[in-house]
């Protein structure tokens, strides 16, 4: 297991550098926005690019970037969107609202989703199962921004229970802030609940019909005991990676939900950085998500071994 982990980590670092280098070069290869002939700012733009070293060979620019990164963890300054500000500071400044809203959302949606899935599986082919399954299909088929507009219209505009948009300020854990987050949290939740419900129901239904469950019951375990001790543990091999995925998704944000509820998060940061050709900001966010994605893959793989001891990562047997 240790060897496997080390091996994967090395691969991960290699892949990370390849992706980073590719992104570093590709963003710089994008053509500059076309200026009309005779635009008076053309000279200034060219001067600025020269001063920033963008006319040097890409490999030299990459080396300078790596030097700054490894000597004092300097990701550079934003050149376009947040001029003169360290891109790392910008990213960290925008991360909290995204993380908090998503965290609140999954903290209550995952238990509910799994509980509904278990309920449907245990009550398979009854009206309970049909109701949950039908509702799940409906909910999962509708994109989250539709819920967002509905939640905003019904709960914020008509009933006036919550503010229409996120409260301003950085008091992330105040009651007023939490209250203003609820519409966004609700909007994000429906899809997650439905997703976990469906996965749990499908997995649990399959496990419950397995022969080892019959064996467990014939050994004298009650239905509850057999379900909790054996069935649930088995179906979690599939569910847990999904939970990890949700937690990783926290960091990515939701472009549309953040847009609807005016959440100043990271949802559109990478896209904006590409559009405005803010090289340092783009590289910083790309590296972050690349690292998170690769690390998550590793963690999920390793987690299989802990959830189900029959799975041995890296074993040749």
């Amino acid at each position: 297991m240790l060897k496997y982990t080390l091996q994967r980590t090395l691969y991960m670092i290699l892949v990370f550098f390849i992706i980073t280098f590719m992104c570093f070069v590709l963003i710089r290869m994008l053509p500059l926005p076309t200026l009309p002939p005779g635009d008076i700012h053309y000279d200034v733009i060219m001067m600025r690019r020269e001063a920033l070293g963008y006319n040097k060979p890409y490999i030299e620019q990459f080396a300078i970037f790596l030097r700054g990164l490894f000597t004092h963890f300097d990701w550079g300054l934003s050149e376009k969107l947040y001029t003169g500000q360290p891109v790392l500071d910008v990213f960290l400044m925008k991360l909290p609202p995204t993380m908090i809203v998503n965290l609140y959302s999954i903290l209550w949606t995952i238990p509910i989703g799994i509980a509904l899935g278990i309920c449907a599986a245990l009550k398979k082919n009854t009206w309970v199962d049909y109701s949950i399954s039908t509702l799940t299909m409906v909910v999962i088929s509708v994109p989250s921004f539709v819920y967002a507009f509905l939640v905003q219209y019904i709960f914020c505009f008509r009933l006036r229970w919550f503010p229409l948009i996120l409260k301003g300020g950085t008091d992330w854990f105040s009651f007023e802030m939490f209250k203003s987050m609820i519409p966004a949290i609700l909007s994000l939740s429906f899809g997650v609940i439905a997703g976990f419900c469906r996965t749990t129901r499908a997995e649990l239904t399959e496990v419950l019909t397995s022969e080892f469950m019959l064996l467990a019951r014939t050994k004298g375990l009650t239905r509850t005991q057999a379900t909790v001790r054996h069935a649930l543990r088995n179906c979690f091999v599939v569910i847990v990676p999904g939970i990890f995925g949700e937690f990783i998704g926290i960091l990515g944000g939701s472009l549309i939900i953040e847009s609807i509820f005016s959440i100043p998060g990271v949802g559109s940061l990478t896209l904006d950085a590409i559009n405005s050709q803010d090289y340092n900001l783009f590289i910083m966010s790309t590296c972050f998500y690349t690292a998170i994605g690769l690390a998550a893959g590793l963690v999920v793989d390793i987690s299989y071994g802990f959830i189900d001891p029959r799975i041995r990562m890296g074993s040749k047997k």
Partner: protein
Amino acid sequence: MKRTLALLLALLMIVPAVAGCTPKKNGDDTGTGTSGNAGPVEPGSYQITEFPADATYTARSAMSKIPGNWNPHDYESDDASTIFGYLVDGFYSITYNDALHPVEGRDPFTTYTIIPAMAADMPTDITEEVKAAHPDWIPADATEGYAWSIPLRDDLYFDTGYKITAETYVQSMKYILDPRLGNYRAADIYNGSQGIVGAEAYFKQGQTSLVPFDNDSTTYADFIAAGHTDDEVYIDIDGFWGIQTADGKTFACITDDTMIRDPAIEEGQPEDYVSAKYLWDNYLGPNGAYAGSGYDTAYVGYLKSYAADPKFEDIVGFYAKDEHTLVQVFKGGVSGFFLYYGGIQDSLILVEPDVYESCLKQDETGAWYNDYMTNKETSPSYGAYSMTSYQADKQVTYAKNEKWYGWHDDVNHVYMDPNDGNVYRTNQTTNIDIQVIKETATRRQQFLMGQLTTFNLEETDFEQYGHSEYAWSYPSETCAGLWLTGNMEGLTAREAADGFDTATMDVQTIGLKSFHKAMAVSFDRQAFCDECHPAYLPGFGLLGDQFIYDPENCLFYRDTDQAKQALCDFYSVDTSKFASLDEAVDSITGYDPDAAKQLFQDAFEESLSLGYITDADNDGKCDQKITMQFIVQTSGDDVMARRVKFLNSNVQEIVKGTPFEGKVEIVESAPTADRWLDTYRTGECDMFIVGVGGSLVNPYNAMGIYCDPSQNLTAAWYDPNSDMMTLTINGEEITMSVYNWYAAMNGTMVTAGGKSYSFGSADCDVDTRLTILAAVEGKIMQCYDMLPFCNFGSKILLTQQQFNVCDEYNPFFDYGPRRYNYTDAEWEAYCQEQIAAHGSLQY
């Protein structure tokens, strides 16, 4: 100039309550006349109606995006100027005329006047004085308009307490021109005739750059005739062809045959490698494809080297005469309205030196950065408001800047209400709250709950709110046109492509002028507007209704007889049948189905004779189907879909009974993304609707988009240099190219018939210029490439908390000042009551 207007408008709209001012302290003329119908009201002869001192009035607005940088020296987006616009002020300001500020010959509230703001008085022309001290700054034969002395008020402060003097301006000028920083806005300081003398040399110190021939209004031939050689002529290879030399240079000599790889061309394909010499020989030189097109003067020029380490005081015409007197020296003569608009008015925005210094930083590569005005702490104000909070991508708030002189100014920052005759202070808004709200649905709900000051109506809102008493129209300055391709080369190439069956399909006909003529009268503009957006208005000329030809007196080009006659001539309106030109113009609809059918018949016959289409069975019907590609940038765009639907259904109806019945179709193109303009230019696609603008106060220059080949979208098939036009000017018949007429009316000396002409503002009377302008407009319309279609106006709902003082729209100050019906506390109570009773505010 357009950016200048945006900035000026931003400054004017720093509060919703933008209002007039007062007569000047000394009663001097402001440049727009003050001895008009009502006569100036003496300061002190009126009582100011004060707003309650303890009340707050908050303006709440929404933006799609708050920029992360609003440094006035480096900003690139208009959003940034909105943010810093509340924090700055100008030397002079434009205000609408009222009883306190009468304008000669104009009724109150129909035009504007210029008043001092941070300046203590109007500027003084000191050209002769400066010329004597710095003969190299001003041409020897110039006597006025080049150097101006501006007296400053002595009560100017930043909100940090930093006192503003003439030296503060000089320091700010040094910062913006600092070559280490490469400030984006430095170009605004040195560009054009209103640029500051020596500013470019200071900014580009130690560098060599290419000066296009356009800058000196010269050409390659003139340059060579002056004794220069080809070795001194360079091409901007980056700007023209998108390539750079091996050592990163963006220009190369026309004799340089070093081959450079063009990354945009696949290796092995023609022109995968090009040299500057190749570009010269094949495109930009006298025998090149673009000879005389304007590209040969925009991308070709000579090199200029700037001295290293110059002393600012020695070369830049911008200095402090004393603590409260600033001197600006321009590269060209400036006077009248343009002295204040784009001249001394706004080319420089002050920065607080102490804060600015603390914001300068250098990274390890040696590059300089500046984070001035990137957060509340680095945003000192010398305007009406101070920034009180800033949260990136979320919210920015402002409150009264008590150190701003205007809050206590009883002379310049007051106006007389036309309705009640009382005198009020210009600024009533005490707080400003700007939030990022991207979604229209969210904005609408915010507005209906009283949380936004205005809401821009969408098409779907018009049925409910279009006729609300709180709805206000905002016309656009430009007239959008239906552009049709005339690029026969591109259309022919399309037919030559694999899979194009010329027996059943045709696109060449689309490029025929006769076909364009038929299209011109095939669409009911009013119906188009009704169908596509209720705020749109039909448009019939290239220049929209808001272009002002006489900014001194706010006179609109479209109101002139010349402009009206041009429309009547183009639309074949017999003016003798109408009592007045106005009635004749009002009769224009641009829609004539009978004429359209006849014109389609003509187009059919021309196309048949040219072999573009066939009529094998001689039934008088076209054998081919003509499918026109309407350019869309992205798929699924509802606005575009609606336009295409309208155009297609109308053209199908019109061609019934003609040889093209059932044979013409308009469809959406494949998404073109950012290449949309290119697809039109190259003939890859056939049509689109777009409005092109220009400076609102310079309709003569705005014609450049049609007459200047370097700007013209139709340059690939229309050459304004060879399209001749004859006009009788002061009894003399003059024939010259459309381009030369355009250049001449913009003040360039041109030659025709062995004589030189210039019809700039300093060279002839305004009627002559209008005659030329209207003739050029008519001539361009007769190309039938751009068919005037509509004015993309808009309509907003204004909150019940505020009201507009004026009913008449003016492009400079909208509907004049806004005042408040309720204080913030009253407004909150009112909203709660209304929402409890009706669910939302009622508009």
